[in-house]
């Protein structure tokens, strides 16, 4: 009797689970069908490319999740593709010359690529959709919006900022009994001299200072020059303005750090220089112009260094405290017939919580004010510093198509050669700078031919 009952129950359990299973199967088939059906009727998928940020795995998963949510909401499916940073520039160059392009993408260097693409290829202005973003000017930082405007046209939504502040080893500072981070150029020299250490053979075991973190060495020059009161070009982007006292001040400062005070690695400007391992090992005491993504990375990958490093504002120069900021934006590519869908996707991504997600995962500061006010960007001391640094951030993108060539961190480029000749080779400053001024003007003229 008992036995029968058990068997019976088992059977009915079985039946129920079979029923449930087939129900799931049917519904899911229905869902799949219903999502395929409109896709067949009208191709409703867009191709979206991004560079890779932060932890590659996490980045891809994040975009996938956002795309799934977006598809559930709108029925538009997003095909995401990651571009390797090492070929990103070549890829966008090819795209701007008519190569295979996505519908929309995460891009940078708008001025160059839109000039190269002309009316046919490359970034596409979307002026008529600008109004779809409510309170654009209030919600986003002003500087970031400058980066998506070129010759009066609106090209997309800025989504990431790359803010540089100052990073230093608190353990080295404490050991030497130094109170806080340097606040001025002079203090940089004093502290760096104190913290530089050499062994009995003269090998440096700890460098007191490094110009900056990114492998882009030209990006180090920008803030020093600004802080000395200089501008690279006139507002219309047609005239180069680098032959002046400010440039002499900036380059002298950099050169003296390397050769007179001997606190900077003379190999800093070579292609294979990377200050990160040195900083992690405590062999570099402080670095100016440190990307905020270092904070995220150090938190995530080097918890054992907790308490041994801190960030602070870039020390003040003779004139001001301007610091470097780069950025990237979401934009539409010419040649797509899905502008509406792209704009919808971009709108979705630029909502507050999604922008917060992108910012958190990529480690880049957000271009939205509310995201920067959120808890995530205030729960660690270094994040508070980054938030403050935003006040001093100045865009590194100049309104001239030739700027990316002028500022390329590559031997042969105008600013790199100038820095190299003045700082590393210690050539005559006046000659170096006037040569650079002439070359830079020629580059600007190149892109202004009518």
């Amino acid at each position, binding site marked *: 009797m008992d036995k029968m009952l058990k068997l019976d129950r088992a059977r009915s359990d079985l039946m129920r689970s079979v029923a449930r299973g087939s129900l799931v199967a049917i519904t899911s088939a229905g869902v799949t069908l219903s999502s395929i059906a409109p896709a067949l009727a009208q191709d409703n998928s867009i191709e979206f490319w991004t560079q890779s940020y932060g932890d590659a795995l996490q980045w891809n998963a994040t975009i996938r999740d956002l795309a799934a949510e977006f598809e559930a909401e709108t029925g538009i499916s997003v095909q995401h593709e990651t571009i390797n940073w090492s070929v990103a520039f070549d890829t966008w160059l090819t795209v701007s010359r008519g190569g295979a392009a996505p519908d929309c993408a995460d891009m940078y260097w708008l001025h160059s690529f839109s000039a190269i693409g002309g009316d046919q290829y490359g970034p596409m202005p979307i002026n008529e959709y600008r109004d779809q973003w409510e309170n654009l000017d209030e919600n986003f930082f002003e500087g970031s919006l400058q980066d998506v405007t070129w010759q009066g046209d609106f090209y997309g939504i800025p989504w990431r900022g790359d803010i540089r502040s100052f990073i230093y080893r608190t353990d080295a500072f404490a050991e030497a009994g130094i109170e806080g981070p340097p606040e001025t150029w002079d203090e940089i020299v004093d502290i760096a001299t104190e913290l530089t250490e050499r062994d009995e053979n003269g090998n440096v075991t700890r460098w007191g200072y490094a110009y900056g973190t990114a492998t882009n060495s030209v990006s180090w020059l920008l803030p020093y020059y600004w802080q000395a009161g200089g501008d690279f070009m006139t507002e219309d982007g047609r005239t180069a303005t680098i032959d002046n006292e400010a440039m002499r001040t900036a380059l002298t400062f950099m050169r003296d750090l390397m050769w007179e005070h001997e606190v900077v690695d003379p*190999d800093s400007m070579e292609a294979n220089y990377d200050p990160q391992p040195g900083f992690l090992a405590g062999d570099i005491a402080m670095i100016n112009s440190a990307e905020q993504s270092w904070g995220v990375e150090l938190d995530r990958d080097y918890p054992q260094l907790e308490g041994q490093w801190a960030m602070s504002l870039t020390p003040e120069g003779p004139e001001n405290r301007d610091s470097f900021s780069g950025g990237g934006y979401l934009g539409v590519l010419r040649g797509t017939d899905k502008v509406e869908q792209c704009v919808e996707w971009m709108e979705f991504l630029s909502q507050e919580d999604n922008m917060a997600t992108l910012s958190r995962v990529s480690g880049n500061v957000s271009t939205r004010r509310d995201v920067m006010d959120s808890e995530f960007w205030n729960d660690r001391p270094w994040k508070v510093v980054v938030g403050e640094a935003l006040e001093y951030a100045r865009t590194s993108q100049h309104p001239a*198509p030739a700027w990316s060539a002028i500022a390329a961190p590559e031997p042969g480029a105008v600013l790199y050669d100038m820095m190299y000749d003045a700082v590393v080779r210690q050539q005559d400053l006046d000659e170096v700078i006037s040569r650079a001024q002439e070359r830079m003007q020629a580059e600007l003229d190149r892109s202004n031919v009518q």
Partner: protein
Amino acid sequence: MERDKLIFCYVMVAPALILTVGLGIYPMLASMVMSFQLYDLLQINAVGTPFVGFENYIAVFQDPRFVQTIVNTVLFTIIAVVVSIAMGLFLSQVINANFKGRAVLRTLVFVPWFVPPVVASAIWMWLLQTERSPINHALQSMGLIDTDIRFLTDPSTFGPFSIPMMAVAAVRVWNGLPVIIIFLLAGLQSIPKGLYEAAEIDGASIMQKFWFVTLPMLRPVMSVLLALLVMNGLGQFEINYIMTRGGPQNLTNIMAVYSYQQAFMFFRFDYAAAASGVILLMTSVVCIFYVRAQSKDTLR
């Protein structure tokens, strides 16, 4: 019958011809045409691509960096070719000899072939980075040096040579060695044993055998190898670009890197094409010498 033969010939050679023209000749011609045009991506939408004669060539030759780059390219090629052939001759002799463990040694010697240039450059960069270089640490702990060698960054020069040039050349040799060894090995095995036996009967020393038997018999392989190595060497790009970008102070810059930078960094496809044109000119000279040497050989 004659017609059949012709049809057969053309059908057989057609696929090769089509691919050679499409992926070899056409890009080459396109690049040569470009070297006589104004082809600046930043101006192209405004002014198009008018012909400008030799202006691009004049422009690159007026760039002192380019002139130094030509010298570097030639030096790099000579160093890499001489050192790798010398090493190749030694290594191929050794692994051609009969001894225990030859198969293992042979495989070990060929391992660099399977490490792609991109990966090889990355690992070598790690090994040659001044502070973390295990080579520096090993040398220091053996007491051979006091201060770290700045393999890739020391700008002091000895005539046209420098430490970074040697370091990058060493990586290029490393990367190219297996192919050279395999060619030389093939060459060695094609030498009839009788020749050595005859030489031995005449009382030849090992030196004399190398000089009077091995080297002359290797002549045909060596000429093919030389031509190949010189032509590839003049157009080499990857290793120099990844490891140094041509620095420090342009000491390791070579023509293909210069050309790449002009096109992909500065948008000057015309200058890039002119630089390639100069490379083409140099490789053509080598090629002509090679073909003439070959035809002399055949006549003999």
